[in-house]
């Protein structure tokens, strides 16, 4: 019973944390916009938390550069299981327009495992919402498997 409740709750209360890994702000503000009245992801029980220890879903925007890759790893490690990672925007997916730059690692999945990729430059709030929904579906899969 309790297990079922927890499972149900998990899908209804994904707390997100956003980390900017060197983005141009485009994807960040679209992520932030998801919280605001027009998109209001709190409808899905999503809360934007500021601290990896409270987060279920990590939203990463930006190219991942050499200085912040360690930070990204640290943050990921401080999240309690079960957790999911969503990479947002061309930068987070591959480095985007900056992928040839010397300081760009290029893609979140080079540092931590990524569950959902949300393309766009920037990804639209709707796309980000879709991404979170997919991440939740993945939670369920992980539990089943």
């Amino acid at each position, binding site marked *: 019973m309790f297990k079922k409740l927890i499972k149900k709750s998990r899908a209804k209360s994904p707390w997100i944390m956003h980390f900017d890994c060197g983005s141009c702000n485009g994807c960040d503000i679209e992520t932030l916009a998801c919280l605001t*009245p*027009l*998109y*209001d992801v709190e*409808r899905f029980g999503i809360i934007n938390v500021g601290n990896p220890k409270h987060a279920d879903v990590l939203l990463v925007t930006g190219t991942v550069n050499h200085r912040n890759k360690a930070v990204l790893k640290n943050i990921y490690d401080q999240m309690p299981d079960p957790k999911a990672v*969503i990479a947002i925007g*061309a930068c987070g*997916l*591959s*480095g*985007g*327009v900056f*992928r040839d730059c010397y300081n760009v690692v290029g*893609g979140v*999945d080079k540092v931590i495992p990524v*569950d*959902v*990729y*949300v*393309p*766009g*430059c920037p*990804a*639209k*709030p*709707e*796309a980000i*919402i*879709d*991404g979170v*929904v*997919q991440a939740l579906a*993945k939670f369920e899969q992980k539990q089943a498997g």
Partner: protein
Amino acid sequence: MLTFTPNILKNLAAKPATRKYPFVKREQFSGVRGELYNDIDNCIFCGMCSRKCPTQCITVDKTAGTWVCDPFTCVFCGICADSCPAKCLHFHAEHRPPSVERETISMQGEPPKPKVKKKAKAAPAKEEAGKKAKAEPEEAPKED
């Protein structure tokens, strides 16, 4: 103090401004650069898009007749579509849906005429691999 009260009371009385996405999808504005796709039937494999693309995420193989784009690198700037001489690149207004693994858009088309028709290999096309289309020889790209 409390100067914001009228605003919140007004909000309380009015309907929330929230758009009910994804349950209700509002109509997109026309001209929005959502998902990029290629009318592969019309593509002449000139490679202009791949040269102009600021992220260099398009690969065009003229001989094999493939057009491959990395949607995870594309920044949806629309330069390719603007510069495409065949005007076969378009954007859906809907954004490209997120995915759970890496993807590429690879499309198999009819390579331009001058070359001898090759057996097109069945590329692992995610997007529907285009039906073989006839490309006009006159529209073959001019090289600098």
